[in-house]
């Protein structure tokens, strides 16, 4: 039995999801930041939590990390309560900012984090992989924002965790640093590590995530794989004079197609976008004496879905 205890992390059913949140509620004073949020993150997968500012992303992730107390609902991390101390060695955490003493050198901090774990990654090799080797002796406060982010990411994974929480890991990174971060997340996923990350970037979620959870006003508004969220079907878009009779157009199209004008003069046809459809639309337009412009066929992006669900107003 001692052997089994060594090879198998203590506590928490192994078939439990990486993270399971049910009816989570969190209030700050009179503001309800999380309002009955329910989500589940599968083991060994990358889950991206997307949402506008103030949607409740960081609150949710910090409750899962055990930093904040929920006001209602249940949260299980690897099948355990977030406060369970046995999770500390099994879960890696990257805060949205800070966490490192400003005067401490990058390499010194990562070695310290490694010393807390039984089987850590080699800190020097990890710094190298993240392009920080030259800055190993640089105090944290003298690192650029992107370098600080990468060091923080290194600290989250140096202990070889089963699950990592990354709170906006690529916010403010230049393209190279972002790519380095994506490379790490992909590597973690291939090695069987569960990853839960928050992000503002649609392309990041689309590229990295097995599952995307869009939250807004403290609730889940959509969840699924990037493909199911964006839909398999593609769209045909074109511009023409405003006010075309769409009912007439639809009657010429195959069953199950949908057409809308939004905004005025911009038309979107959704449905089976087969080559015939293009011909039918252009033929109908020609018969109506309508000139079409910018006619294109494209897939709905996650950004389209996101903006449809969360609105376009700034906050």
């Amino acid at each position: 039995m001692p052997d089994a205890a060594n090879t198998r992390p203590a506590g928490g059913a192994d078939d439990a999801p990486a993270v399971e949140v049910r009816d989570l509620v969190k209030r700050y004073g009179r503001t309800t930041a999380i309002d009955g949020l329910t989500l589940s993150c599968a083991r060994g997968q990358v889950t991206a939590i997307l949402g506008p500012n103030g949607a409740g992303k960081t609150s949710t992730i910090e409750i899962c990390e055990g930093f904040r107390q929920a006001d209602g609902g249940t949260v299980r991390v690897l099948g355990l309560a977030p406060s369970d101390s046995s999770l500390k060695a099994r879960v890696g955490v990257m805060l949205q900012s800070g966490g490192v003493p400003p005067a401490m050198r990058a390499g010194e901090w990562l070695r310290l984090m490694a010393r807390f774990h039984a089987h850590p990654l080699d800190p020097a090799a990890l710094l190298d992989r993240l392009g920080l080797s030259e800055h190993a002796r640089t105090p944290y406060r003298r690192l650029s924002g992107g370098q600080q982010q990468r060091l923080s990411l290194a600290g989250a994974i140096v202990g070889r965790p089963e699950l990592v929480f990354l709170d906006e890991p690529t916010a403010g990174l230049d393209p190279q640093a972002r790519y380095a971060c994506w490379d790490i997340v992909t590597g973690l996923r291939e090695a069987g590590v569960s990853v839960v990350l928050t992000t503002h970037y649609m392309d990041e979620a689309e590229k990295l995530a097995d599952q995307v959870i869009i939250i807004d006003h403290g609730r889940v508004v959509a969840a699924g794989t990037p493909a199911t969220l964006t839909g398999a079907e593609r769209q045909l878009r074109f511009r023409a004079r405003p006010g075309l009779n769409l009912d007439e157009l639809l009657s010429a199209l195959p069953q199950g197609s949908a057409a809308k004008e939004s905004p005025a003069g911009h038309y979107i046809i959704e449905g089976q976008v087969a080559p015939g459809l293009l011909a039918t639309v252009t033929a109908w337009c020609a018969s109506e004496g309508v000139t079409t412009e910018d006619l294109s066929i494209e897939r709905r992006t996650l950004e389209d879905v996101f903006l449809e669900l969360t609105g376009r107003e700034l906050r």
Partner: protein
Amino acid sequence: MTSLTPGYDTARPLRSDQAMTTTLDFTPRPGAAPLPRMVLAQAGAEMRAMLRNGEQLLLTLIIPVLLLVGFSQAPLVSVDGARVDFVTPGVLALAVMSTAFTGQAIATGFERRYGVLKRLGATPLSRPGLMFAKTAAVLGVEVIQVAVISMVALAMGWSPHGDPLWIALLIVLGTAAFSGLGLLIAGTLRAEATLAAANLVYLVLLGLGGVVFPVAKFPEGVRPVLELLPITALTNGMRSVLASGGGFPAGPVLVLLVWATVTLGVAGRTFRWE
């Protein structure tokens, strides 16, 4: 599954076992290090941070040594016997206060502000483990302070008396009492307020606690109150052993024990980690 680190490593020849260390295998293999190793690593990091920080060094070494030299050489206060024999125990007590209280309060206040304590809370190092590490780091710095101050004092003709065991006991208890006080402030006030309060309390206790001005010079009425201050207890205890070769300093030990129990107890309840 995982790739070799690109770039630098291919340029230099590697033995196969070295090459292995540059391969990053992300396969989960979680586990906490043994507690002593974690505590030692954290204590080492904290000690290095204290010794690298200029303001901290000013507080923990430069000011005590300047006071020691100044008050031993110049006839600023009249005492019985050699001035260095009177001043050194007080300066040793001051050194303990500067590290355990002022330095620790300020450092911890800013650690809280920068999210350092929060981040440490997500590591396998438990909070008691972190407290052990902080205490070990403070004691480590105190060993250096005592060595430096003693050497300077000896060079000026200091002749210490008494049992070193009592000195060690007083320093440990003083450290506990001042750490409790420092953490109480750092765990409740903002970092800037902690900075101001810690410096203010340091100055007030330096003036009132018999460090260089004998408590006997204060009016009779306030003396019993002053005797109950942790700095006065530590100073008197150190002086009774080092200057007079006295035995077990029961009174000071009791006062420090009460301070340590109360401040650590309250700090433990009120400390906010974020």
